């Protein structure tokens, strides 16, 4: 999936007929890759898959479908302009006239039967796009269950977009299918959910299957411990590289006015009552699951998203940025999570991307002068150990890690007082990750206040001075560096009660 990285290594897993089997692990543990292989979406480099005694070295989606393997993806994929009934039966519509015409009457009758099986009361003639994401997810589950009549159903974090009611409906369909003897592979990073629905679960860590356990063998604590591993339990002192830990006391944040402080920030449906301070020379981590509101908070501060109430103060003065240009003028910079969508201009050269936010600095008169421009680009590139063939090559030619470094360099070139870094290590290989983290710690933090989010806790634990726990848009606590423990943090971002200071 990500070039240059090994997503899965020597994983063996057996799933019994009729069981609901959970797969859990941290971000990047290899969950999605594993089920991708089973569903025929990803080709493995080595190993075999055996379904009902038939052995496959790789599975195409078509073969997987023939073996009655269905997948319900994380993001529901429905054709928004087609009706519920059409979506349910696509692409094998009931036909008449020897397969020439779609049999609409029968399509609607069949669809109504299926919707009834899911205990839903929706009009099958309605457009799929008019339904909520959660409802679309349920319909996909019904499609897998009763249209494709799958015997193995893979749920890839299918619950992440469901409301409480929808979750109940979804569980009931799962229970029905289980009673029919259907096998379900359920991927999630939520411990509660797994313990509620699964018979057995396999824990993945760093691309390896570390344990397969029965539900009655484990509780929440034991499962968290398995997920984060022995290193995570050992606490911050070992998890963090020695120099950073040693440097921590002398670099402790100044006790004066915070550079950025956020008071009671709320935005409907994203986050509620968020308050925190960041000081000069401090790295503040925000830990939370996907959808917990991390990105939205940073974007609201940066002026990209509106907020409903609350206040943002910069150096003690209230501010509200009208947009990115305004925020940058006030020396607040944001590194977007969506690297290719919001970070880079693919059609431009590496050089033009690097200097885009610092054009004013390299001008003489009304013109961009080329010598300072090349010099600045080289400085930025060297500072991040960027590897490229030529400054003139287009940025889309670079690898993911190097593209990320270009975005980071562009953000650094503005020399801000506040860095809002939204998942700067997303989707890049280990070497590039290490370089970026070191640069954040050694280059950025000494001159500014840094707010950092990350899908992985280890990264936050490595370089943050404090970590805020975010769950469902609320801040549950703030943990100082001395008290970092990966297992507790992991439980905390799941919304579990843990002894937090």
């Amino acid at each position, binding site marked *: 999936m990500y070039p240059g990285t090994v997503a899965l290594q020597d994983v063996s897993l057996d799933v019994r007929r009729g069981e609901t089997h959970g797969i859990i692990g941290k971000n990047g543990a290899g969950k999605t890759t594993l089920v991708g292989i089973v569903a025929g979406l990803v080709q493995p480099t080595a190993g075999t898959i055996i379904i009902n005694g038939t052995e496959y070295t790789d599975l195409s989606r078509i073969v997987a479908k023939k073996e009655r393997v269905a997948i319900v993806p994380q993001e529901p994929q429905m054709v928004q302009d087609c009706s519920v009934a059409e979506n349910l039966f696509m692409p094998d519509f009931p036909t008449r006239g020897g397969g020439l015409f779609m049999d609409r009457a029968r399509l609607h009758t069949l669809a109504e039967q299926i919707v009834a099986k899911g205990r839903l009361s929706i009009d099958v003639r309605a457009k799929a796009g008019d339904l909520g994401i959660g409802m679309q997810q349920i319909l996909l589950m019904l499609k897998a269950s009763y249209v494709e009549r799958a015997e193995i159903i893979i749920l890839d974090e299918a619950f992440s977009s469901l409301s409480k009611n929808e979750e109940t409906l979804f569980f009931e369909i799962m229970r029905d299918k289980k009673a029919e003897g259907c096998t379900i592979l359920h991927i999630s990073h939520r411990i509660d959910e797994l313990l509620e629905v699964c018979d057995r679960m396999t824990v993945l860590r760093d691309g390896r299957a570390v344990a397969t356990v029965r539900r009655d063998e484990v509780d929440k604590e034991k499962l968290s411990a398995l997920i984060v591993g022995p290193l995570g339990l050992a606490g911050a002192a070992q998890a963090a590289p020695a120099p950073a830990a040693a440097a921590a006391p002398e670099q402790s944040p100044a006790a004066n006015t915070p550079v950025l402080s956020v008071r009671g920030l709320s935005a409907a449906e994203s986050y509620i009552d968020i308050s925190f301070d960041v000081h000069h020379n401090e790295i503040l981590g925000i830990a939370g699951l996907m959808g917990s509101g991390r990105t939205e908070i940073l974007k609201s501060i940066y002026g990209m998203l509106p907020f409903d109430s609350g206040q943002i103060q910069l150096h003690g003065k209230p501010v509200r940025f009208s947009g990115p240009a305004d925020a940058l003028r006030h020396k607040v910079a944001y590194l*977007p999570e969506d690297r290719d969508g*919001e970070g880079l*201009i693919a059609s431009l050269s590496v050089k033009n991307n690097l200097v885009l936010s610092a054009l004013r600095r390299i001008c003489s008169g009304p013109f961009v002068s080329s010598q300072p421009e090349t010099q600045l680009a080289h400085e930025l590139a060297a500072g991040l150990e960027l590897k490229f*063939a030529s400054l003139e090559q287009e940025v889309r030619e670079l690898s993911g890690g190097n593209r990320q470094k270009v975005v980071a360099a562009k953000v650094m070139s503005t020399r801000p007082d506040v860095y809002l870094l939204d998942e700067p290590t997303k989707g890049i290989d280990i070497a590039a990750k290490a370089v970026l983290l070191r640069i954040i710690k050694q280059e950025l933090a000494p001159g500014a206040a840094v707010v950092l989010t990350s899908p992985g806790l280890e990264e936050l634990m490595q370089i943050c001075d404090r970590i805020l726990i975010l769950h469902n848009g609320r801040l549950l606590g703030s943990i100082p560096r001395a008290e970092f423990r990966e297992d507790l943090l992991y439980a905390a971002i799941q919304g579990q009660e843990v002894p937090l200071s």
Partner: protein
Amino acid sequence: MSAGLTTTSTMNTSTKLQLFLIDNLIWVLVVVFFLLNAALTPRFASYGNIVNILYHSAIMSLLVLAQGLVLINGRLDLSIESTLGFAPGIAMLLSMRIMPGLVGPVTAIFVTLLIGAALGWFNGVCIAKLKINPLLQTLATMIMIRGILLFIFPFSLFPLSPVYRWAGAGRLPGNIPVAIPFILIVFAVLHVVLQHTPFGRKFVATGGNPRASYVSGINVERMTIYAFMLAGVLAAMSGLLAAGRQGSVSNAMGEGMVLLSFAGALMGGASLQGGTGTPVGMLGGALLLGMFSNALNLLGVGPSLIYASKGGLIFLALLLDRARMRRRSYLLHKEQVEALGIEGISIHKQDEKNRRKDT
């Protein structure tokens, strides 16, 4: 300089030359086409004919530049061909019929450009602020102003004042039409602005990825409005040249020219995705179109067939552009593989294949 970091200077000369030719492919085509015709087509390479080609390409080239700038911004503008007629039409109507005392020929030139800017502003605001689809917005403007033009101009207006005609019909010493240096200056200025000013950089970046440009602190709405205003002004200039050349203004001026403006701009390196293309490239595109019809004309091909051949030329140019992008990406990738010391040519051959599938 740190390890693993290489610059253009370390590339070997053959790669550099290839990249240079690839990046300026349109001018390579212009030169090749010129030499070919100079050898084969009678009278093609004479001084008179070269001036003739440039003169006849002038009007279209400004329209190509107008379209090209909007394409760089990632949009398109159908209305420029109507602006070409509308702007000089209204200016001359004011100058010759409605308020001749107030609007002299020099003022009329400014009024012409101002009308172009105003129409562009209207398009730009509707597209950037109201988020109307550019195709539909400019289609509406195109029909609207052509309709108005037909309504108020059931006739042609002539003779125009020599001052107003100077840019389009005037001659400099050596019998060089004023229009030729005129467009060369316009192209040069816009080339410098786009390549070497912060405004130009932001303008091109906006077209490449508006979302990322916005996050980088660029006012993308303003950039879009400027793009359409520039297009409007250039279309009006084009109209000024056209009116000057024919010595009159009429309601059919510019009709059907917008499609060829796309052709010239796309051949000159612009793409419908935005973010690419340079004014110098577009001048090449416009000249190639002009030379092509001139050559066919000299060979005695009729206008209908010339029009059809232009379509074929555009298609060929598009095919060439795909090949160009592949070759470019291959060269840079090879360079990178060598620079980083990654093993095996076989890897990037494989990669190259995948890349082809992607694009």
